[in-house]
């Protein structure tokens, strides 16, 4: 179903992602990207109809950190605002729906992750099933490694193929000044076998922001808006042992509902924090060699948790803004082993 209102991503900004940002509070990290998307569009905080953010207080251990981050928006007098406790891609989804309803014509979406104060591998165990999983403290790398081994057993990949994904991603990131890991590097030792250091995302801090606008407002604000042709998100059963870890039916269904299979895409920004997860996503989405996957370097080059999914949407949109893509797929994930998946299809208009 095609939505009635046209909504586009008209601006995107992200921080330089770093291993640590001890010198910055969350709001100090977020503010520059908010100012950058305002600069790109010429919009002031008071011009924006709706604001939505995504973050998790568990990362830095600061309760209600998102309310303090809101200071950077200029939220007083009170603005129309919302927050999701997950990746900012889902904040973008909420903002998109808000714009489709006609309640607003522009929206600011931002997200941030400050993983450096804590141990993100352990922090993420707290999102798991509290009865059967969380008491065992299975960390995020361990769960991804179980998925990777299942892929190896199924003949879907092997260690050299995973190493090639890692190398390609970091090589592509040399052209991305914001990336944390730029340039190929050795695969290193096993973190949790079969995943080596190189198969895992860097741990770091970062922030991102986008601005959405409808119809002619979008055309005023951006030379070549990235129109959201469709967007959907779906989730797998929560018990890992029930799922086929070598496939991602939720990604496929979200992509189908977003219209991704109606025509080929030229670019795909996939949120695959682990090399093995790119294998699953390529399979689920039926991407062949004609599609440019993660020209930004993807989450293997910079993975600010809670922002990395929004960055995939932003990177895909920015490629359309620059005229380097006409039709792009953007994907975001949340939870262990690609638990929940969001797919958006973005297009640029070819003007006469």
């Amino acid at each position, binding site marked *: 179903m095609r939505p009635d209102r046209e909504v586009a991503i008209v601006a995107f900004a992200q921080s330089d992602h770093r291993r640590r940002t001890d010198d910055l509070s969350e709001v100090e990290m977020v*503010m520059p990207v908010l100012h950058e998307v305002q600069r790109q569009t010429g919009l002031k905080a008071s011009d924006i109809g709706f604001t939505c953010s995504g973050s998790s207080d*568990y990362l830095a*251990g600061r309760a209600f950190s998102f309310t303090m981050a809101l200071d950077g928006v200029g939220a007083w007098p009170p603005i129309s605002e919302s927050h999701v406790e997950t990746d900012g891609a889902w904040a973008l989804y909420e903002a998109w729906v808000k714009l489709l309803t006609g309640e607003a014509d522009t929206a600011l979406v931002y997200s941030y992750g400050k993983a450096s104060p804590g141990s993100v591998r352990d922090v993420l165990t*707290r999102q798991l099933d509290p009865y059967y999983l969380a*008491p065992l403290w299975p960390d995020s790398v361990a769960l991804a490694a179980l998925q990777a081994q299942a892929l190896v*057993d199924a003949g879907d990949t092997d260690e050299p193929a995973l190493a090639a994904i890692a190398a390609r991603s970091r090589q592509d990131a040399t052209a991305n000044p914001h990336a944390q890991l730029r340039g190929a590097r050795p695969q290193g030792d096993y973190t949790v*076998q079969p995943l080596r250091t190189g198969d895992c995302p860097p741990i770091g801090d970062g922030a991102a922001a986008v601005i959405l606008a409808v119809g002619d407002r979008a055309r005023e604000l951006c030379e070549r808006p990235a129109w959201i042709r469709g967007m959907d998100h779906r989730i797998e059963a929560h018990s890992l*042992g029930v799922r086929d870890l070598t496939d991602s039916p939720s990604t496929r269904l979200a992509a189908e509902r977003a219209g991704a299979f109606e025509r080929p895409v030229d670019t795909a920004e996939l949120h695959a924090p682990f090399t093995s997860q790119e294998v699953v996503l390529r399979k689920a989405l039926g991407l062949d060699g004609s599609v440019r996957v993660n020209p930004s370097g993807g989450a293997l080059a910079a993975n600010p948790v809670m922002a990395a999914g929004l960055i995939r949407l932003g990177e895909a949109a920015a490629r359309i803004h620059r005229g380097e893509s006409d039709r792009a797929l953007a994907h975001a994930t949340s939870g262990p082993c690609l638990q929940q998946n969001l797919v958006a299809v973005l297009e640029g208009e070819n003007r006469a």
Partner: protein
Amino acid sequence: MTAVTPPPEALRAPLVVEFPFTRSLGPVQSAFLTGLRERTVLGVRTEAGEVLVPPVEYDPATAAELRELVEVATTGTVTTWAWNPEPRPGQPLATPFAWVLVRLDGADTALLHALDAPGPEAVRTGLRVRIRWAAERAGAITDIACFEPHESAREHEPAPHDGRFDAPVTGIVAPARLDYTYSPGRAQTRYLHALGERRTVGERCPSCAKVYVPPRGACPTCGVATTDQVEVGPRGTVTTFCIVNIKAKNLDIEVPYVYAHIALDGAGLALHGRIGGIPYDQVRMGLRVEPVWSEDGRYPDHYRPTGEPDADYDTYKELL
């Protein structure tokens, strides 16, 4: 005094977030976890006839309520694995082990746990394993200490089970502890450094000129960074207050006492602090106060009257 100063060296402090989650169990979870205490593994049968282990209350495919319990074997087969060379706090084993998904004989789905094996070369998908029970069991997933390699025949048709045990477990307490290194950021670092010198330093918004104390790095009205440092106080005015009658846990202050909003001279908004040195029932709006520093001089312990005449309402009405 107004000055733009470079950010001082970042402050750091350990921060521990620790909490026990107390959770109640549904009937299926209760039977499963009580069963583990009794060295019995229960699954639940779906409408399609599949046996789910670990069992859930609702069918993941159809959302139907599931109640038909069956007993499965304590032996099973590894469906995927991952070798963990460096166990982390809280994980089932302290020595290197394999994470495994195990399909117990009689079950159609797999359970996540640890496998105690000498090394990765001893583990493979398809390996036959059995449960090693914890010596002390309380009705939790950790009643399974881990799995261990064990050759056995794939037997076992799941047998019906009524799920009834003496003294069923109806809840779990899951302790969680996360360790952080807290760093407050530029604005609050500057504020804390100044407090160490018994000075209260706010920051001015370059756009609307409001002075924030304590500063949090941004002006929430203008959405821009506050950068100009402004020393405020030390004296201030009570703008509003309340009388606290209930003693907080671990707080060494006698009740009743007064907690107040205090607008330090030069500040654009009030901060809060305790009022001392005056009977609680004599504290009033407009009372002029000054800080009494803690013994180590790192922060104002409380504020006391200065003896000045009360401030005129008009001087602080915008700061309420």
